[in-house]
């Protein structure tokens, strides 16, 4: 039963990633694109944890943690670049 639930959640997050990709391609504003990238990072974290759950190993938590950190830093850097034209002043 858990396996089917993992598959269902994985399909949901995969479809969510596709919708985010569509918003990145269409998004009229830079803010929309940054927001869609941030959402993609969150969805990929969920997918990594799901994959670890499916395999039954705890290895993928480190990958998810690293992804969370890099995603936050990249979002802030992109925002600062749009805001000030420079990342570190």
């Amino acid at each position: 039963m858990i396996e089917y639930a993992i598959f269902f959640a994985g399909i949901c997050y995969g479809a969510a990633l596709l919708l985010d990709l569509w918003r990145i391609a269409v998004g009229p504003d830079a803010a929309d694109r940054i927001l869609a990238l941030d959402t993609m990072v969150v969805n990929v974290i969920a997918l990594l944890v799901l994959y670890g759950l499916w395999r039954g190993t705890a290895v993928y938590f480190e990958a998810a943690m690293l992804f969370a950190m890099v995603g936050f830093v990249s979002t802030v850097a992109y925002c600062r670049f749009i805001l000030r034209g420079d990342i570190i002043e």
Partner: protein
Amino acid sequence: MEFIAELLISLFLVVSGVFGFVGSYGLVKLKDSVQRLHAPTKATTLGVGGVLIASMLFFFLDTGHISIHEILIALFLFLTAPITANFIAKTYMVANLKQEKLPKSSSECGWSIYDKPPSSDEDS
């Protein structure tokens, strides 16, 4: 593993999957950029939170040890979500809102995106 535990884990997984999809569907469906800021917060809190709770339950029942990786990830995401939302809202304001349209700021230094930061004594 007991049937009740499997049912609980599956329930958390399904709920989190639905919320993750709803977050991105709102990102596509909502009309305005500022409205779109609202939708992905569901994917961050309920979606990833549900997956992490399910994973904590699974590994606790599987090995008997409580794993705290999940709490770390959830804590990090919940701490950084408001900061990124604030930055994205500022980016939108810089691109689309003129200063004359906004009400006057109540602080001495004005709006942080239009006015210079207050200079300290060491600078001058």
